[in-house]
């Protein structure tokens, strides 16, 4: 633990590896559209229960990395901002409506949106940062957001929990609507 404290104390050199990791860790958190969609994946997984509760957080990072790889390699993906905004809207509606599709369809929806999120991360590497560690950072941060969504989703077992989850889904959907309007303006 002392070694960890020492390392965290050391300020990252500008453009160095630690800067890349920290940039990656914080990148999903700096965009509310990303945060809402990641949380919604966790919420929806918790609503659907096993095996979706862990299948969706497996599918999302994997497809996100494919989208990010495309971004890193300079392959264009049309409508990224639109796709991200739609992801928050659609996932929010699915949570609000407690929609229960087949697992394969749920994973397909989540994986499809993950491509857009990944592409955005892949094209937004800060100048001079370490690409490899930046990538590790945003994968870990994404997973952590899913876990937070799942943790919130566990409230469904409490009295009024199911209704609260649906309300949270509604809030995510409203956020998605705002981002969609911003993207289309």
């Amino acid at each position, binding site marked *: 633990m002392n070694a960890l404290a020492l*390392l965290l104390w050391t300020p990252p050199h500008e453009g160095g590896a630690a800067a890349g990791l920290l940039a990656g860790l914080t990148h999903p958190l700096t965009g509310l559209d990303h945060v809402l969609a990641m949380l919604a994946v966790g919420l929806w997984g918790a609503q659907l229960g096993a095996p979706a509760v862990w299948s969706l*957080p497996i599918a999302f990072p994997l497809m996100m990395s494919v989208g990010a790889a495309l971004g890193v*390699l300079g392959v264009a993906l049309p409508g990224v901002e639109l796709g991200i905004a739609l992801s928050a809207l659609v996932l929010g509606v699915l949570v609000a409506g407690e929609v229960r599709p087949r697992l394969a369809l749920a994973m397909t929806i989540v994986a499809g949106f993950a491509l857009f999120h990944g592409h955005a991360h892949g094209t937004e590497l800060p100048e001079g940062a370490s690409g490899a560690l930046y990538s590790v950072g945003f994968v870990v941060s994404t997973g952590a957001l899913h876990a937070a969504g799942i943790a919130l989703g566990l409230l469904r077992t409490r009295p009024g929990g199911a209704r609260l989850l649906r309300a949270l889904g509604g809030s995510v959907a409203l956020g998605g609507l705002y981002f969609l309007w911003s993207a289309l303006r």
Partner: protein
Amino acid sequence: MRGARALLVVLAAALLGAAPSAHLVQTGFGAFYDGIAHLCLTPADLLLVLALGVLAGLRGKEAARPVLFLVPAAWLAAGLLAPRASGAGTLDLFSAASCGLAGLLVALDARLERRALAAIASLAALLHGAANGAASEEPGALPLLGTALACFALLTLTSALVVARATPRARIVARVGGSWIAACGILLCAWQLRAAQG
């Protein structure tokens, strides 16, 4: 719990430490310790070893035991035999790909036979060892010996943690972790390809 904490400290040290590179880091303690640090500070190598440790642990004690010894041995042998500066970029790409594949196998909880697991782990270790050896600027076996022993220690710690917590929930956590490693592997491949494009 103490083992998990120790693992977290190593991970944090690795990921927040010096720039990841196939070139050896200079710890100032000598070539052997440079080799240990190299494993901990190279994402592709570190993630591969973690994935192999988890995969071996998921398959149980009997399957894990050969992996603990075959992987460091293969790593060391390949590192010693790889000619310097020969196709280092290509080897780095295959190393990243093997890291992704190992993560995917964990995510899928692949029911590998004992021999298949040993073969896959050895092959991955040969690739990474060769990549280390080809890119190493430090002569002699000491750095590679340090890397191989660090590999053994990390494999043992990781697989033991997984074997000790053989509950369905722990298995799911391991699989989710594997998907993260697979995702990182895909991205590491992309960065290697981008570097190759110039």
